[in-house]
C-alpha cells in the first residue's frame, strides 16, 4: 500500500468508496455545461458537468474521473458543494481549499487543481452559442 494510504481521512475514504453524483447526464439533458481537465497519461483526467438553472445557479452535477483516491473523493465532495451555488461562485470554488480542509497531503494538491480546471472549463461554456439554462431550455422545448 502506498505511504499516502494512512494519510487519507475517513471522509476521503468514504467518498472514494461511494462517490456521490458519479456518472454523466443522459445525452440531451437540458441546461448541462461540460468541461474536462487533465490527461490519463499524466495520471488523472476529470470530465465535470454542471446543470444550471434559469436563475444561474447550479442545480445538479455529474462527473467522470480517472485518478487516485484523492481525485475521486474531491470530485464527489465538490459535486455536493456546488449544488445551489451561483455559477460564478461555483467557478470560483476552491477545491484546493477543500483538499486542505480534508488534510490531503501537499502532493495531492495537483488533484484539486485538476478538478478546479474541469469545473472552470464547464462554467466557461455558459455563453456558448445555443446553450440554454435548464428552465429556459425546458420552456423552449415545450414551445
Amino acid at each position, binding site marked *: 500500500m502506498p505511504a499516502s*494510504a494512512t494519510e487519507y481521512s475517513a471522509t476521503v475514504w468514504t467518498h472514494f468508496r461511494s462517490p456521490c453524483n458519479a456518472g454523466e447526464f443522459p445525452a440531451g439533458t437540458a441546461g448541462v455545461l461540460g468541461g474536462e481537465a487533465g490527461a490519463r497519461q499524466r495520471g488523472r483526467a476529470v470530465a465535470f458537468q454542471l446543470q444550471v438553472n434559469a436563475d444561474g445557479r447550479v442545480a445538479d452535477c455529474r462527473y467522470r474521473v480517472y*485518478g487516485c483516491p484523492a481525485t475521486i473523493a474531491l470530485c464527489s465532495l465538490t459535486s455536493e458543494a456546488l449544488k445551489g451555488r451561483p455559477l460564478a461562485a461555483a467557478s470560483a470554488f476552491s477545491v484546493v481549499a477543500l483538499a486542505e480542509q480534508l488534510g490531503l497531503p501537499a502532493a495531492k494538491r495537483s488533484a484539486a487543481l485538476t478538478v478546479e480546471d474541469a469545473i472552470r472549463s464547464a462554467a466557461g461554456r455558459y455563453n456558448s452559442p445555443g446553450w440554454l439554462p435548464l428552465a429556459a431550455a425546458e420552456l423552449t422545448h415545450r414551445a
Partner: protein
Amino acid sequence: MNHKVIYLDYAATTPVDPRVAEKMAGCLTCEGMFANPASAHAPGRAARGAVEQARNQVAALVGAEPGEIIFTSGATESDNLAIKGAMHFYQGKGRHLVTSRIEHKAVLDTCKQLERDGFEVTWLKPDPDGLIQPSMIEQALRPDTVLVSIMHVNNEIGTLNDIAAIGRITRERGVLFHVDAAQSAGKLPIDLKTLRVDLMSFSGHKVYGPKGIGALYVRREPRVQLDPLIHGGGHEHGLRSGTLATHQIVGMGAAFDLARQELAQEAPRLRALRERLWQALHAAIPQALLNGHPSQRVCGILNVAFPGIEGESLLFACEALAVSSGSACTSADRQPSFVLRALGRDDQLAGSSIRFSVGRFSIAAEVDTAASIVSEEYRRLLDLAPTG
C-alpha cells in the same frame, strides 16, 4: 495473521513459520542457547553447534558446502558484499561489471555506487518477457569484465532467468557470476554443485524465516575471494565481522530445512494457486495483461496490468487484499515500476499493475475471493472513468 485481510504478498515477506519461531525462541533466554557462539565455554560451544547446524541446513537446500555459506544481515547485505567485495578484490584484473536494469534495488544501487567510485557498469535491458537472455551476457562481456550479477527470479514479475546457461558462459570466459536468489530459494530446486555460479545471495524472511538474516554463498572451488564490507573480529572467515545472531541464524536454518523438505509438494501447489488466480482474473477481465514470460516464471508470483484504470485507486479499492502495486504514487510525480517500464509497459499500465504472490499459508478460497474483489473493483473504477 490478520484474518480481515487476505495476504497475497509473500514475495515481499513471509510470516515466520511457527516451527521456525519455536526453534528461535530456544536461543534467546537463560534456559536456551543465548551464549556467544565465539566463546570457548560450554554454552558458547552449544550456540556454535546450533549455528553450524543452521549453516548445514542452508547449504543443503542449495547444494553447497557448509563452509561456503556466510551469514549476513539479509539479501541486501549479501548483494553488497558479493558485488562490492568482488569488484574491489579483483580490480587489478578489471573494473567492469555487467548487470540488468531490472535487478533488485540492492543490486542496482550497489552498482550505481560502484559507478560513482569509478567502475564501469553495463546495464542490460530485458527482452519483452522480462528475461535476460544468455546471449545478452555473452555480448556484454569484455576482457576487463570481473563480474556478472543477474537475479535468478525477478521479484516483481517472477520471471526466471537461465542461470545455468549464463554460468556456463561466465565460467568459460573467466568472469565471476553472482546471482540474487532471494526469490527463488525454497521455491525452485537449486544445485550449486552443478550450477556455475560463484556467489549467490539468500534471504531468511522470504522463506518463512526471520527478517534481519541472510546468507551469501561464496564458492571455494574454484575459490572466490572478496574484500569484506564490515571489519571487526574476523567472523565468518573474515568476510563478515560481528557477533553471530544465533536465534536469527537458527531461524534461517530451520526455515531452509523446512523448505527443502516441502519444496517438491509446495511448488506445484503454489503454481496451481497462481494459475487459478490468473485464470479467474482473465476470465472476469479479458483485457488484463500478464506481465512477464507466461511460463518461464517462479511458482508463486503473478503480476497483472489492468488497463484503463488508475493504479493507486485499484490498490486502495482492494483494501481487503495485501498485494503490491506497480507504482509508488505517493507524490505528484508518479513513479511507475522501473521493472515494468523496462519491459516496455507505459506509465498507465505500469501504474495499474498489481503483484500477487501466494505462499505457504495461501488457500484456494483466498485466491477466489481475491479474484472477485479485484474484478468487481476494476469494473467500478472503469465505470467511473471518462470514456476515451
